[in-house]
C-alpha cells in the first residue's frame, strides 16, 4: 500500500512548520436563498485526520462538494497545495489528487467491485479508443498493471472475496468500503470521506477505524472525515470542526470540541457525550 504512494511532506512531527495541504478561506455558498455555508475557513495539514461534525443540514457535505468542485463556492477561495482550485472542473480537481467517498456510496452499481476500484485509477490510465479496442499489447498490459494496483488496494481493505461481485448486490457496509477503495485507487493526497460509518454496525465500524488509521499512519494521506458516531470520530481524529447552520462554531482537539457548550446544545444532546458503559 505504502509503496505505491509517493513520500511527501518531510514527515516531521512539528505541525506548526508544515504548510497546509488544503486551505479553505471564507467560503460561502447559497442555494436559492438558503445560505448553505457562510464564511467557513479551515486548514488541513499534510497527513492529518480532520473530523467534521455538525447537525443534519449544517452544510458538512456542501463543504466537501465545494472542495471537489461539484458546487463552486460563491465567494472565498480554496487552495490545494498552495494553488487555487476554485472554479476548476471536477475531474481536474480529482486529477490533482483529491479523492472522495460519498454518503450513500454513489458507486457504479452495475459494475463489479474490481471495475469500480480500477475506475478509481482512471486518471493514471492512458488507454484510448484504439489501444482499448484492440486490447492487445499496450492496452492489455496497462489493464493488467491497473488490475495489480487495484488488487493491492482490495487486499488492503479486505475486499478480495467480493472482487467479481456486482456492487449493487453487496451489503451496504461492504459498499461503503468499496467506495473508500475507489477513492484510494486514485492515490490521492487528500481524501474527503463523507459519513463512512453511517449505517454500519459496531464491528464494521471497527474495520473502518482500522482502515482509516492505517491510511493515516502508513501513507500519510490527509483525511477530512464527516461522521455522526461520536465515539468513532473523537477517538480517531487529530482535530475536530463543528459546523452548525453553515457556520463553523468550534475548532480544536476532540476533547475541546465535545466539551463546548454550544456544540453540546446544537449537536450532541445531553445524553450522548456521557458515553454509556
Amino acid at each position, binding site marked *: 500500500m505504502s509503496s505505491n504512494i509517493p513520500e511527501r511532506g518531510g514527515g516531521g512531527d512539528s505541525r506548526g512548520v508544515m504548510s497546509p495541504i488544503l486551505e479553505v478561506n471564507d467560503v460561502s455558498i447559497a442555494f436559492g436563498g438558503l445560505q448553505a455555508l457562510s464564511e467557513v475557513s479551515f486548514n488541513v495539514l499534510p497527513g492529518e485526520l480532520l473530523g467534521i461534525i455538525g447537525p443534519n443540514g449544517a452544510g458538512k457535505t456542501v463543504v466537501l462538494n465545494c472542495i*471537489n468542485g*461539484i458546487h463552486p463556492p460563491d465567494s472565498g477561495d480554496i487552495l490545494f497545495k498552495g494553488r487555487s482550485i476554485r472554479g476548476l*472542473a*471536477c*475531474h481536474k480537481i*480529482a*486529477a490533482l489528487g483529491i479523492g*472522495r467517498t*460519498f454518503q450513500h456510496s*454513489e*458507486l*457504479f*452499481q*452495475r*459494475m463489479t467491485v474490481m*471495475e469500480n476500484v*480500477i*475506475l*478509481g485509477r*482512471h*486518471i493514471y*490510465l492512458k*488507454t*484510448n*479508443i484504439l*489501444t*482499448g*479496442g*484492440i*486490447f492487445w499489447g499496450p*492496452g*492489455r498490459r496497462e*489493464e*493488467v498493471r491497473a*488490475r*495489480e494496483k487495484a*488488487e493491492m488496494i482490495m487486499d488492503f481493505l479486505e475486499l478480495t472475496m467480493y472482487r467479481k461481485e456486482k456492487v449493487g448486490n453487496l451489503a451496504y457496509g461492504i459498499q461503503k468500503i468499496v467506495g473508500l477503495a*475507489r477513492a484510494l485507487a*486514485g492515490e490521492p493526497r487528500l481524501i474527503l470521506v463523507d459519513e463512512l460509518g453511517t449505517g454500519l454496525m459496531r*464491528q464494521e465500524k471497527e474495520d473502518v477505524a482500522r482502515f482509516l488509521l492505517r491510511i493515516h499512519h502508513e501513507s500519510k494521506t490527509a483525511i477530512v472525515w464527516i461522521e455522526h458516531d461520536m465515539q468513532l470520530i473523537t477517538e480517531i481524529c487529530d482535530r475536530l470542526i463543528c459546523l452548525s447552520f453553515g457556520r463553523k462554531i468550534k475548532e480544536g482537539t476532540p476533547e475541546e470540541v465535545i466539551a463546548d457548550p454550544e456544540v453540546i446544545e446544537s449537536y450532541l444532546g445531553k445524553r450522548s457525550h456521557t458515553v454509556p458503559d
Partner: protein
Amino acid sequence: MSDHKILQYPKSPYLKTSYYEDTAIQAFDTPFRKKCLVIGLLFWVCFPFVASSYVVHIANLSAIAAIGAMSLNLLIGNTGLLSLGHAGFMGAGAFTTAIMTVQFGLPIWIVIPASGIVGALLGLIAGLPSFQLKGIYLGLSTLAIHHIIKYGCSEYQYYGGFGYGIVLEAPSLGPLLLAGKTVWFFVLWISAFATALLIANLLRSKPGRAWSAIRDRDIAAEVSGIDIGFYKILAFVVSSSLISMQGSLYAYYTAVVSVEEYSFGLTVSYLAMIIVGGLGSVLGSFLGALLITALPYALIILAGLVDLSFAVKEHFSVIQTGVFGMVVILFLLLEPLGLVEIWRRVRCYFELWPFSYKPLTIIKR
C-alpha cells in the same frame, strides 16, 4: 522426508494464475466454452452451404442488424445516452457509399472507412448537446439530426435524378467479387464478430469503464477524474461511426440506396432489438437482432402453414407490426432485462442443479 515425492498436478484449465489470463473475454475461458466455440464455428461455416438462400438472406440481415444493435446498445445500454438518430447515421453511411461509388468509383476498402469518418463527424455534432441535455431531451435533439440528414439525402436522391433509389454495382475486394448471398454471409458475419470483439474490448478497458460509470452515477464519475463531456462525445462518435459503416455494408449488400429505408421506424426497431435482447450486453444485441429480424419472416412461414382467409392475407403487414409491438411490450412487462437475463437464468439453473436456490452462506469473520 527426502523420499517424499511431490506430485506435480497439471494446471487446471479453470484456474487462472495471472491477471493477464483474467482479462480474457469470459465467454470462451473454460474448456467447455472453448468446445462450444469450436462447434459453433463449424456450424457457422457450414450454415450457408446447407441452408436455403432465403434463410441465408435472413441471417445476413440479422448480422447487419446485430452491428446496428451493438452500436446503439453501446450508447444507450452502456453509456446511458438516448439516441433516436441512428437510422439517420446509418443513412448517412449508405449515401456516402452511394456518392463515392457512383460518382467517384472508389473501391470498397476506401468507402467503408470514409463512411465511418462521416458517421464519426455526425456523431460529434449529435453528441454536443449531451453536455447539457439528458434522457428524452437528448433523444429529441438527435431526432432533429436524423431529420436533417434525411432531408439532405432525399434532396440528393431526387435532384440527382436517381428516382426510387441509387443502384450500386457489386464491389470487389481484390480478386474477390462480393456478390451472392453466401459470400456476403461471411463478409457480414465476420464484420459483426469484429464489431462485437471491438466493443467487448472497449468495454473491458478504460473507455468502457468510464462509460459505465457515467451511466451509473455521473457525479461520482466526475469526482473520480473522468471528463464526462469528452467520454459522452466519444461514445457518440464511436457508436455513430460503427452504425455508419454498417449502413455502408447494408447499401453494398442490398445494392440499392433509397432514403425511405432510413426512417424513424428503423431506429425504433433497433431500440426494440436492444430492449428485447438486453441493455448493455453484446450478447443481448445479437440475440435481440436475431429475434426481431427473424420475427416477420417466421410469421410468414407460420402463415404459410395454416390456411388463411383472403382478408387476413391482405392485412398481413399490419399483423406483423402488431406482433412486433406485442413482443416488445411482453418483454418490457415480463422480462425487462431481456433475452440475456433468460439466458443467465437458464445457466444458473444448470449450475445450481439439483437445488433451486443458492443456500445462505454463513460468513465467519
